[in-house]
């Protein structure tokens, strides 16, 4: 399934030379904000779609002087016509749409996931179709759109036969299907991003996701059991890597299609290795060491389900909440995926696989040093 170029290859206007007009949805998100900064820094004209005036202020503050060159439009994907504010004159100039807006919580319910992630993508595609100069439509997705599929995960369309661990995964798969259904009409890309462990290789974390929250629960001794198999590979990237990859892959000169913005199995880390590293870092803290908190036991699916089902009978609100945070992605921790990223490697000629253990160690170190953002880091 090959994406269709809208304009001649020689007429690319959205390259890294600062030409073209790119519209970014989810510009107030963790990735979207930095991606917007990158586009602006590259000299591109950027329209930032944000949901609210508060989000607009936040993004503007984060971007600093660069924000003065950005144009903001209000886009709420839960509305019937979310892109109504993108008027026809503007649409005629848009050369690239990067659709990054999504609800990324693993515990999102089906209704919200369908409304924002699926229907939101449908609206973004409609917007893209209305842009006559469009050279690139990019869906920022997730490697977990593969759901519970095991084995080799190619940079190709997935089936949904294996099912999904949660409605977030399902909705991102559905969103991909919408894009693929219009493959003959749009110059499309689907960029499946792995779990973002840190802002960059220093391990600094400014946005906490389920990975960080789970480590926090372990640090405070609230998770006696973790779901998963010790040898399950985990795939992490930094935001810096993801933003750089997305920026370059959205370039119309780059072949379209599906890419894994992820490292392959050789640069993954197992759940056991993650826990070893995390607890080594935790042990560097006197308070933690004195409490002698043991590594959580890895539980099989049935044991973990029993824990989740029964926890309200023998635990308080903190433990109950801790398990509620982990449960939505628990099933992924039993699934061995072998991510292929050969298309990414081909597209990014200077690609180098990182040392996953170093990244995880740096991340854990920073999380502990800042107590998950509550303290200033002493690096």
């Amino acid at each position, binding site marked *: 399934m090959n994406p269709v170029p809208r304009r001649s290859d020689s007429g690319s206007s959205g390259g890294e030379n600062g030409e073209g007009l790119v519209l970014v949805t989810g510009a107030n998100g963790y990735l979207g904000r930095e991606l917007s900064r990158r586009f602006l820094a590259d000299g591109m004209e950027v329209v930032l779609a944000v949901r609210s005036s508060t989000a607009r202020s936040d993004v503007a503050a984060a971007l600093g002087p660069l924000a003065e060159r950005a144009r903001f439009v209000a886009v709420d994907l839960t509305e019937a016509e979310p892109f109504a504010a993108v008027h026809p004159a503007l649409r005629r100039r848009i050369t690239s749409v990067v659709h990054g807006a999504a609800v990324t919580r693993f515990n999102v319910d089906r209704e919200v996931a369908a409304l924002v992630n699926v229907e939101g993508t449908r609206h973004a595609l409609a917007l893209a179709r209305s842009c006559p100069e469009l050279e690139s439509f990019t869906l920022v997705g997730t490697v977990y759109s593969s759901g519970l599929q095991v084995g080799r995960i190619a940079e190709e369309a997935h089936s949904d036969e294996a099912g999904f661990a949660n409605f977030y995964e399902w909705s991102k798969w559905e969103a991909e299907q919408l894009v693929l259904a219009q493959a003959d009409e749009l110059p499309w890309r689907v960029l499946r991003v792995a779990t973002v462990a840190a802002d960059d290789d220093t391990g600094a974390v400014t946005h906490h996701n389920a990975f960080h929250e789970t480590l926090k629960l372990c640090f405070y001794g609230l998770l006696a059991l973790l779901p998963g198999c010790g040898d399950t590979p985990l795939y992490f990237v930094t935001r810096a890597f993801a933003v750089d990859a997305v920026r370059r892959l959205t370039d119309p000169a780059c072949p379209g299609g599906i890419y894994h913005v992820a490292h392959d199995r050789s640069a993954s880390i197992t759940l056991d290795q993650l826990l070893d590293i995390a607890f080594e870092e935790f042990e560097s803290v006197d308070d933690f060491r004195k409490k*002698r908190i043991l590594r959580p*036991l890895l539980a099989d699916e049935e044991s973990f389900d029993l824990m989740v*089902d*029964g926890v309200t*009978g*023998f635990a308080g609100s903190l433990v109950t909440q801790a398990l509620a945070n982990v449960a939505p992605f628990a099933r992924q921790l039993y699934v061995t995926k072998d991510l292929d990223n050969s298309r990414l490697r081909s597209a990014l000629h200077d690609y180098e696989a990182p040392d996953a253990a170093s990244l995880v160690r740096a991340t854990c170190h920073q999380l502990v040093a800042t107590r998950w953002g509550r303290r200033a880091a002493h690096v």
Partner: protein
Amino acid sequence: MSGPRTLEPVYVDDFCFSLGHRKLSVEDTVAAGHTRTDAAGLLDAGFRYHHVCDDEQSSYDLAAAAVAGMGDRSSGADAIVYATCLPLNGNVGDVARFDRSKDVKHLMDYPASRLQADLGLDDAIVLGLNQQACTSMLGSIRVARGLLATEPDMRRVLCVTADRFPPGALYEQAYNLISDGAAACTVTKDVGAYKLLAAHQVTNGAMVTADDDETVGAYFSYTHRLVTELLAKVGRTAGEVDWVVPQNTNAKAWQILARLLAIPADRVLCPSMPDVAHVISGDNVVNLAYLTASNVVQPGQVVLLVMAGYGMNWQGVLLEKA
């Protein structure tokens, strides 16, 4: 050159218990406001009734009644190990008299001494054990074994645990419905019901003030560690455990632990739980008394006793049916 010292076998026997006089249903106790958890939660956990002392019934009365249940089997004991979960039950003196007189002797009216006198065990030494919470009875069995191993003249130790909650207390701890009660057994060099294979304890003193969430957070990992280390002491595996007799706690907790330990869930026995709830540190003995009556455990079978308690303490004892 001498080889490793082989200890003379020690046996555990004569399981007896007593309970508070008032038997109350979960619904009644919840309605009276004596729990944090609602009735549905406690019933779902596996509790149905619990037992509470009436105003005149002391923890010592519970202890005496439990020991009375073993008839003359307590006679001839060379030592009494008297364990309590609550330190305040290690004194049967009138605290009000201390308040009036400021004389601390009223805080040192020890139930172990009273029991020695009441049983006429004039030659028995007495020991009190009161900082191991719900694991105290298993701790007393371990102490008894130590005494028998190191004191050649000793043949029999009487282990007793007795607790009643003070008036006004909630009858729920760590999501468990509590009963006032006592339990007793003997640890002896004479062949008895169960051969004591091993005892093990893990204490994490840093968690002495752990809240309920931290307690649950540590419960599974530390219990797993305790059992693993206990079995390793005698070169056994979980597959060689025929029965687990744990404390009377939420049934789901041991369903999970059994899976984590690779022990079939139907091998976990706490038959007394619906009727007596969590009898503080007496649960294992109470359950063994039930099992003795029902003849479930067969000769040669291995029984694992496990308890967790504040402190934080975890203790386990491995027995083999004689």
